[in-house]
């Protein structure tokens, strides 16, 4: 899954954080906005899909166990819509890596993560050098 060029340029500094824990959402917004990212937050998969329809993003930071629509459901619907987006599974569960494989995510981040880990992974998908790779609008 790689971000298509057109969308990537438009959404290059937007990150979608999906987590049912408000303090995790607050934390991510706090960290990433300080680094110049725009952070869009959703508390479940359904809300995340709705937001994606309105706003393109360069990466989705996806919790797996959530009410309404969980990480698996979100990934499935995303695929059905034919939308291709970098997804990073962020979970405290034992099998973070296996779940990431399962839903075809691009990377995973195990909780508790450190500041540097989060920045590094977001940078990987939304960084300046990546946007330069995309074709000019």
């Amino acid at each position, binding site marked *: 899954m790689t971000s298509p060029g057109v969308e990537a340029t438009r959404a290059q500094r937007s990150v979608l954080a999906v987590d049912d824990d408000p*303090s995790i959402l607050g934390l991510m917004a706090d960290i990433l906005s300080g680094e110049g990212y725009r952070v869009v937050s959703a508390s479940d998969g359904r809300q995340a899909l709705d937001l994606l329809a309105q706003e393109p993003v360069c990466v989705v930071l996806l919790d797996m166990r959530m009410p309404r629509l969980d990480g698996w459901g979100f990934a499935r619907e995303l695929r059905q819509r034919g939308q291709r987006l970098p997804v990073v599974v962020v979970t405290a569960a*034992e*099998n973070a890596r*296996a779940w990431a*494989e399962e839903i075809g995510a691009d990377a995973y981040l195990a909780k*508790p993560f450190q500041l540097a880990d989060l920045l590094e992974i977001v940078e990987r998908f939304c960084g300046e050098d990546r946007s330069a790779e995309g074709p000019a609008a």
Partner: protein
Amino acid sequence: MDALQLLQLIHHGVWVALAAIAVVRVARRPTRTSLDIALFFAGIALFVIESRVLAVVDLPGGEALRAAGVILVVALPYLLLRILDDFAPVRPWIMRASEASVVPSAVVLLAFQDAQLPLAALLYVVAAFAAVAIYSAAVAVRVARGSSGVTRSRMRSIAAGAYFLGLGILVAGVGAVLPAATAVAAAVTQLCAVASALSFFVGFAPPGPVRRYWQIPELRGFLARASTLPRTGMDELVREIEEVAGRSLGARAAIGLWDETAGVLRFARSGGMPSVVGPGSPYLVWRSFAEQSPVYVSDAATANPAAADEYRRVGVGPVLLAPITAGERRLGVLAVTARREPIFAEEDLEFVRLMAQQAAVLMESRTLIDEAARVRAQEETARLKEDFVSAAAHDLKTPLTTIVAQAQLIERRAEREGRAGELPGIRRLVSETLRLSRLVEELLDASRLERGAFEMMLDDADLAAVVREVATYDRPGVERIKLEVAGPLRGRFDARRMAQLVDNLIDNALKYSPAQSSVEVRAWSEDGLARVAVRDAGIGIPPAELPDLFNRFRRASNVDHRRYGGIGLGLFICRGIAEQHGGRIWVETELGRGSVFQVEIPLRGAVPRSPGLEAGTVRA
């Protein structure tokens, strides 16, 4: 020969045959009862033989023989009561009366030998016989009601014998009084005599096959119940076996359980047995257990004079003992006792042995079931604990995520904004939350190892590079580390886990050694193994604690717990990591001189030991 004569021949034949068996028995085992039985049957048989012989040939002194025969016949009621007395208590005055009646009966019969008996005399003889027979039947019935199994069947047989005897005598009396009924009465009397002889014999001295025939239903019932027995406790099981064994033999049965720690046999219910029997005890039950051999004695007091008084006190006569042993495991002894001698025969020993074998199987399976249940409960407790640890550690992770990253964010901002005064405090906050995070991770790792769910990600890696990197981390005391790496050490490793292992060893070495001493970290290869050694000049480990050192929650006792934090999981996890790589970890230590922790990992084809791990199945 007419039918009546044939019947008489059969009648006589039966008595003579049974008498022969009884005599052989008394010769083999001369006891009071067998003697009484032999006298009873032989008395009748002699009379029969003598009357038949005298009918054919006129022997000299035939009169005297005839007289002896009459006396034998009139003594029969007395002999019958004697046998009965061996099985059940007969009132003494009745015994005396029957003894006394022998003489007048003999006188009456002898006086009118060839002449017709006067009615009064006839009635007297018939009444005396019938009274004894009916009394015997009543006693036997009463005893049968109060007993069970073989004893009950025997007493019923005896009762039947007595009834037939009484009936036969009454009918014979009627035949003598009414000449018209003589032929019929004679036939009925003959039939009654045969039935009586057989019933008495079966009751007094049941042959083996009859005994077994009586025992089989009890044994079958016991075996049928056996499948449900082990569900109850050991105590109920023992009681049930005692009951069935007692019931089937019509006696008291008691099981003495072997108490291995005390080295004694314990009887829960007395059943004629002492409650504790140990080495040096005079009882036969101890002999049976110690020698592991079944024992039968017809009278315990005679067979074992050392404990005769005790046997008499509790009313133990004959004893059957069989050790209860499952394979090599001695479980106890099955003891069956009765008050009166003729209740058992030696043949019953086989039956008791069979019971004891069944008891052994049941008790052994009960023990195994109990054992299995205990192990299951233990495992369940352990699993619940592991589940709890895992769930608790897991729930700690989410708040930790916010705390760790948020603290680091605050630190970063303070650095950027140059708030130098706040920085030391913020850094403490960050390092302590990281430590907390590591502890939670350790708990989880330990729990994963316990559950066999320790996930490994084996990749081609260079252990030398891992050691070099870990040993040069910026940490307090890093300058004390003397690093000596002969690499590369290429193999299949989980680099993150190996780093965790080496880091832990270096951490311990720095922590438990004097501030100025050096810590040597070496990595090299030898015989296809990658080896890492971490040597410190620290406090060392007491030898007694070495075997447990790599177990969970074990910390050496000479560690100051307040000075050195930790929950004792580090080395347990280190061992887990080494073993998951197919390697091992050990320590050489000297108190006060220091320790060398060594790890060796096969360099090629490192395979996780336990199957079912997800190692290698996950490839990002």
